[in-house]
């Protein structure tokens, strides 16, 4: 609107007072009244805009008391959602019409949880907690994207919000998959390993899991090359202390340590899974 007005006035003046038609310019030095008007009016206008922005924002900050808390962990380059009963998943399942409070944290660098469909985002800053809430109103699937630059796979740091009916949610919520020797495949998905590793031999930021078990591999220990056999012990160490041995040709400091994140059983399950990926 304002833009149209300015542009129209500009074009009109350029045409109306063109050199040919108006060879004699008038020297109007200014007009105090006009200055006051076009300072005051926009001021009023922007104050209204400010107020609407503020009001909208405030409601996005006041979480309803009945909101369901979900802990969100952002890390290069995946999301993890942890529910009150300990259930962990890489996608966000929420029941229809129930407010959700997302408690945000980051394991490494800054990220930002962004759900375009509900028009909200909030940064995940390492060492700080922040939050966000929303109320899913349609049985739909929304995209989750990362909105704060976080490195190589930033644009692939995607997930989904899956809005399901209350009863479906109940069933999903209460099925807690046991950790046994067959859960490796699920764990590497949920714990974000697949944002850096593939299971089909393809190269990403890290080496593929496929076909490494039992092979000889060149690794760097404090920048010195060494040959080792990939066995259970090596794989467990790779997860606990990734920087101890760096696979040749791959960057150090990328692989996050899984100490304290994955339990011993989970790590063993993953080792078994890698072993089976021939």
């Amino acid at each position, binding site marked *: 609107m304002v833009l149209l007005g300015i542009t129209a006035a*500009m074009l009109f003046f*350029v045409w109306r007072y063109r050199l040919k038609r108006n060879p*004699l310019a008038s020297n*109007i*030095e200014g007009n105090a009244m006009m200055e006051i008007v076009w300072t005051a009016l926009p001021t009023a206008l922007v104050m209204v805009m400010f107020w609407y922005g503020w009001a909208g*924002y405030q409601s996005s900050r006041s979480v309803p008391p009945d909101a369901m808390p979900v802990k969100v962990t952002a890390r290069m380059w995946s999301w993890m959602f942890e529910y009150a009963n300990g259930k962990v998943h890489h996608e966000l399942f929420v029941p229809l019409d129930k407010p959700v409070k997302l408690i945000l944290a980051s394991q490494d*660098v800054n990220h930002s949880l962004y759900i375009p469909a509900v028009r909200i985002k909030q940064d995940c800053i390492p060492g*700080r907690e922040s939050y966000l809430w929303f109320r899913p109103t349609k049985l739909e699937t929304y*995209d989750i994207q990362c909105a704060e630059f976080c490195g*190589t796979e930033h644009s692939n740091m995607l997930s989904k919000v899956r809005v399901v009916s209350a009863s479906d949610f109940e069933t999903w919520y209460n099925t807690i998959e046991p950790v046994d020797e067959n859960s490796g495949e699920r764990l590497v998905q949920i714990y974000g390993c697949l944002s850096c590793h593939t299971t089909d031999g393809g190269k990403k930021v890290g080496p593929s899991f496929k076909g490494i078990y039992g092979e000889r591999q060149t690794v760097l220990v404090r920048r010195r090359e060494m040959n080792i056999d990939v066995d259970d012990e090596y794989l467990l160490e790779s997860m606990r202390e990734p920087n101890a041995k760096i696979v040749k040709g791959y960057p150090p400091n990328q692989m996050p340590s899984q100490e304290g994140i994955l339990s011993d059983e989970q790590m063993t399950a993953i080792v078994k899974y890698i072993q089976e990926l021939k």
Partner: protein
Amino acid sequence: MASTVVTHTPAVLNYLEEKGRHAGILSWVLSTDHKRIGLLYMYTMFAFFGVGVLMGLILRLELLTPGPTIPGFTANMYNAVFTLHGVIMIFLFVIPGLPAIFGNFCMPIMIGARDVAFPRLNLLSWYCFIVGAGIAVLALFTGQGFPDTGWTFYVPYSLRTGTNVTLGMLGAFIIGWSSILTGLNFLVTIHRMRAPGMGWFQMPLFVWALYATAWIQVIATPVVGITLALVMLERAIDVGIFNPALGGDPILFQHMFWIYSHPAVYIMILPAMGAISEIIPTFAGRTIFGYKAIALSSLSIASVGYLVWAHHMFTTPMSLAALFVFSLLTFFVAIPSGVKVFNWVATLYKGSIDLRSPLLFALSFIFLFSIGGLTGLANGALGPNLHIHDTYFIVGHFHYVMFGGTGFGLFAALHYWFPKMYGRMYNERLAWYYWALMFVGFNMLYFSMLILGMEGNPRRYYDYLPRFQTWHVVSTVGSWILVAGLLMMAYNFIRSARRGAPAPANPWGGVTLEWTVPSPPPVENFHEIPRWEGSAYHGFEKLQRRRSEAQ
């Protein structure tokens, strides 16, 4: 248009011919003449601009289709390229911007001085600029390549990445010196060296804008210098100021960074606004409407501009009180810009408007800058910000401000002062053609980005969800049209600098002092320091009187 030529003692060589003590290239790189230094900046800045545009083209090409588009071009390369693009455009193009080129070239003449206050310091600033830029280039080709952090260098990512962040930052750090020294030099020059009789409110508005800008350069730049130095220290010896793993605070970095980088957007835009305030009266053949309002709005932008930095951080954990204040102040800082726009449009009222290429670019500036400003209001409002922050909406917004604003303002200034710089005219008809290409291409390129942002496409994305593709294609095609226009413009100026028709001293009927000296100006500008009388643009009255007598 009739021109008033003030004849000079013909024995004085113009600044392009006069060699000084050195010959060849040395007569340029060792010259302390403010006009030669202005051109040195111009050549180097446009060289970087060319590289920056090329990087932008590569980014756009990569985004033509979802997934990898250019064979062999990886996500890491994309990240380094947008960082390089941003660093070049910000630190090597728009921040030095109009002050480095036209401030150096025109300001001393406009206030009736023979040079700036400290000519050698002025040359040193250029060397800081070149050395800093050289170090940044070094970062490209050594170690693990150019930083991939974005031009904002946010920690902790910038502490972790293996790329050449330290070297890149050192480059920016040294370029900061160039900005500070130029600012100091201009402040002293404007305070001490105005022609006798020229009071503060008789200075041309471009000088006012440079004055306000210089204060920001001197006060704000050290903050970013310290911030960058701390990150370099942190990378080298883990001092633990920003690194959360060592008890540091990554948000502190963002505050410190934006305490400089928000005022820096006014370093970019104020001088362009100043140039527009010169061009519009000249081609409307009448004095500016609301001289004082425009001059004072520059100062108020410069001062309130310090207090809004955290609007870049609305999605970080911050107190509600901080959010309230920073959003409110952000709206206030928009008002003086609005006042300028209204005064410019009012200056067209009852003028006799000669629509030539400088005015054409100036009017496009008003249009594009207004879009930039209005989208800025959307960013400043807390509710909408939550949605559009860090999306392509922001990328669209700041290109409208920095490219549509500062960029087009700089092109307007170049069309305006080029005859003065080289004593030659350029091809006016060609200018209209490439203006059309640039204007259309620009809006295709960046309006699409505004839409993409509203649809939810985050920025700094090597890859995107397939549903965003349509507007990405429009945007990429727009970039080709825009660049075609830029190339034609480059051709026009390069050709005209050598072969254009000779320009008179005052081709446009301007009334400020630079139009009273020959084109190109003699070495020390004035044979005799002029006396100034009357308001900054009183010259138009004489012009009009002459015209009405002629009728």
